């Protein structure tokens, strides 16, 4: 060990023998002796994350996933994934004496006879809905800002896979209680499997262990839902996050940002406090939803019975796209293929369409790179308006998806708005063909218009709203230039990918978006400003006094010298 020090300095307060004295220091020393963690710890604690709000949407998904793991583990302690029949005799009277599977009965047990079981079950289900919604808006942010470009294509692929797995996991999860609504969904899933050419009936019989519904499917879905897919999700999420840590986050271009650095806050303690706080906020919102909004009331649906169905049967929202495509796809079936084979109508909207959509999404970064011939690495994001083709394609895809989502619930829309059901179907089919190209064109024009406006403001300055009358009689509006102007009064600033101020209150210190508050402008608190002013004054006064004293002392010395010389 090194020589002892008496003063306390930057190092941990240490004893006479140089050993750390605090608990934290002792712990750190214990690990460091075994694992040499000092430098990597500091490396990760000092990592810089930019703090734009749109970068936190992926975190919503991450935190929802953690909530799912926690609440899901609780549920596994009570759920019985068996399709054996039993007569219900729990405390929900309207179902007493009814024959049902053990899976359904155990879910009723959790909901009515386990303390807090219902709130945890509801938090679990809300978290599942939020998980996929958050992944989707996160994907949209990544897409529209171009964050998927090199070097992040791998993360994009992992992200799409996470969405697909999340949807499958959700479907497996809500099918576990074996209620009438999800059982109907399983029946449709069976029809989808049957529709696959050549191997369809084999796939169906393999999954259901024979004819639908069999007695194995709930148990198999259970293992898929609590073991297989969570394991894959956990692994992929870990890789997803590790890649972000390794490659560092992207950021929007503004003053002072370059491709070779990332600016923001260090993880410890500020970003960790915000991110950790955000985890609790997401959890809190889910807890509130789980308490106040009833979800998946399986006791109202009844146990699954293949002879029963309810009107207004929809799957959970993230499956509504598939439901919509199935409702809209016309009755086109291929008969007599190769003389005797059938390709059912369900195959195209439920197997082919999702495969195409997911496939397109997976390869999009590579398509775009090839079409734009862009092989450079990008760490700065693009404003959506600056890439009108991509933004318009995205708007087209979103419109397509939204039409399908709405069509997934078209019977409820029909009854809610007094529209004929047949009209909803036809309307959906027409909208699906017409609206996406329309959305493309409209979005494209909007992007171009916004781009033009940016450059116009850069050239002509901001409209101040002040009208002046020239001596010649004409009225002009005074414009505030954003930078130096040439002889003709036109600005010389080039567009640099950052957002251009468009209003007067976006100029000056208020313009620095990163220094703008949320509810009110950021100003120094008055008392602190006063105190600081006081301190400054007193410091100045002290300085002045010091200088005064110094000069006085020097004068005295000079005087003394002179007197000394005179007396000599």
């Amino acid at each position: 060990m090194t020589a002892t020090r008496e003063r306390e300095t930057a190092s941990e307060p240490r004893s006479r023998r140089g050993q750390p004295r605090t608990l934290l220091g002792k712990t750190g020393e214990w690990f460091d002796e075994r694992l040499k963690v000092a430098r990597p710890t500091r490396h990760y604690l000092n990592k810089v994350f930019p703090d734009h709000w749109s970068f936190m949407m992926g975190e919503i998904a991450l935190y929802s996933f953690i909530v799912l793991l926690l609440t899901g583990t609780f549920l596994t302690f009570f759920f019985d994934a068996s399709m054996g029949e039993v007569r219900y005799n729990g405390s929900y009277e309207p179902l007493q004496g009814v024959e049902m599977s053990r899976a359904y009965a155990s879910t009723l047990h959790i909901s009515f006879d386990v303390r807090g079981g219902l709130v945890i079950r509801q938090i679990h289900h809300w978290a599942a809905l939020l998980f996929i919604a958050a992944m989707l808006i996160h994907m949209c942010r990544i897409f529209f800002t171009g964050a998927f470009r090199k070097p992040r294509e791998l993360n994009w692929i992992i992200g799409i896979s996470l969405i697909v797995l999340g949807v499958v996991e959700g479907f497996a999860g809500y099918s576990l209680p074996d209620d009438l609504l999800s059982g109907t969904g399983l029946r449709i899933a069976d029809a989808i499997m049957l529709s696959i050419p050549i191997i369809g009936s084999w796939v169906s019989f393999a999954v259901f262990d024979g004819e639908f519904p069999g007695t194995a499917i709930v148990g198999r879905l259970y293992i898929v839902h609590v073991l297989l897919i969570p394991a894959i999700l956990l692994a992929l999420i870990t890789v997803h996050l590790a890649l972000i840590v390794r490659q560092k986050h992207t950021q929007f271009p503004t003053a002072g940002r370059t491709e070779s650095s990332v600016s923001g806050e260090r993880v410890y303690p500020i970003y960790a406090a915000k991110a950790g706080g955000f985890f609790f906020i997401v959890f809190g919102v889910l807890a509130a939803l789980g308490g106040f909004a009833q979800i998946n009331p399986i006791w109202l649906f009844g146990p699954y019975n293949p002879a029963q169905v309810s009107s207004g049967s929809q799957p959970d929202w993230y499956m509504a796209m598939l439901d919509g495509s199935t409702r809209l796809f016309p009755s086109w079936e291929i008969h007599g293929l190769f003389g005797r084979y059938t390709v059912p109508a369900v195959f195209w909207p439920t197997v082919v369409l999702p495969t195409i959509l997911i496939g397109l999404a997976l390869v999009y970064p590579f398509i775009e790179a090839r079409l734009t011939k862009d092989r450079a690495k990008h760490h700065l994001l693009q404003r959506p308006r600056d890439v009108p083709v991509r933004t318009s394609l995205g708007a087209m895809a979103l419109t397509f998806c939204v039409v399908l989502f709405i069509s997934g619930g078209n019977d409820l829309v029909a009854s809610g708005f007094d529209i004929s059901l047949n009209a909803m179907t036809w309307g959906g089919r027409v909208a699906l063909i017409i609206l996406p190209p329309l959305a493309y064109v409209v979005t494209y024009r909007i992007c171009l218009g916004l781009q033009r406006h940016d450059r116009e403001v850069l050239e002509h300055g901001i409209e101040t709203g002040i009208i002046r009358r020239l001596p010649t009689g004409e009225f002009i509006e005074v414009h505030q230039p954003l930078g130096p102007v040439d002889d003709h009064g036109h600005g010389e600033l080039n567009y640099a990918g950052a957002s251009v101020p468009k209003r007067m209150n976006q100029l000056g210190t208020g313009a620095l978006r990163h220094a703008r508050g949320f509810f009110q402008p950021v100003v120094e608190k008055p008392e602190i400003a006063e105190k600081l002013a006081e301190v400054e004054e007193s410091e100045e006064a002290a300085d002045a006094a010091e200088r005064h004293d110094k000069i006085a002392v020097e004068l005295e010395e000079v005087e003394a010298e002179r007197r000394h010389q005179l007396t000599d």
Partner: protein
Amino acid sequence: MTEDFDVDELGFNPAISATGADPDEAPHPDRASSSLGARRRPRRAVWRRRFAGGVVLLIALIGMGGAYALFATSSGANTSTSTAADVAAGQKLYETSCITCHGNNLQGVNERGPSLIGVGGAAVYFQVSTGRMPAPGQGAEMVRKEAKFTDEQISQLEAFVQANGGGPETPTGNLRDTSLSLGQGGDLFRLNCASCHGFSGAGAPLSAGKLAPTLKHASDSQLYTAMLTGPENMPVFNDNQLTPDEKRAIIDYIQTLKESNDPGGSGIGRIGPVSEGLVIWVAGIGAIVLIIMWIGAKS
């Protein structure tokens, strides 16, 4: 009971089949009403028509009575007693409010209203107490409105129609008194009713603008008479198919469900995943995105 007579036996085609016209067909607005046309005819033709109408009525009554005796069994519920005064009062009400579409002999009017011969007091009770009748006009669906007649007037109309063709009567007594359990009632509900009315009775659209209405306003009697008479496009569940005990079990289940509280907080409509999806996007994502905008802002 619905019509069971032979077209050839009558000698002419009745105005409309008992189940009513095709709702997809709209009436022609410029077609003159038959009553207007009748006034223009000479008096002898009018009397001949009325005599013929009476013969038809007699044959229909005999046919109805016979068919009823052959096929229908007792509803098992107490039948109400109605007097001749009720029938007369009912006739007066009928002549002011119903005759335009249902004809002066309840035989129905082509393109306007079906025959009421044999529909029974139960059908009258259902249609009139839910305000569907008198109907304001033709359409794909007659929707529930505020009832135009008082309870007493409804009984009088029931008596009148019952006297002029028979049919199932409105039951009395406690319509939730059943020997079956709530669970069995629920099972019957899910097998027979939920496919149109939804698992929580919220209703659903049928094809081309028709509707299976929500059950949330329905009283016990209205539920019973609807099952018994099969109004509009609802199938008919007579008392052999769903015994009165089973009907009462279904009513018990539906009404208990309506009165029961949701254990999981707000039921958000009890319509399933669509409202849940709306909530997660509006309240969940909406609130959280606002929060992250706040977190991301510097202070």
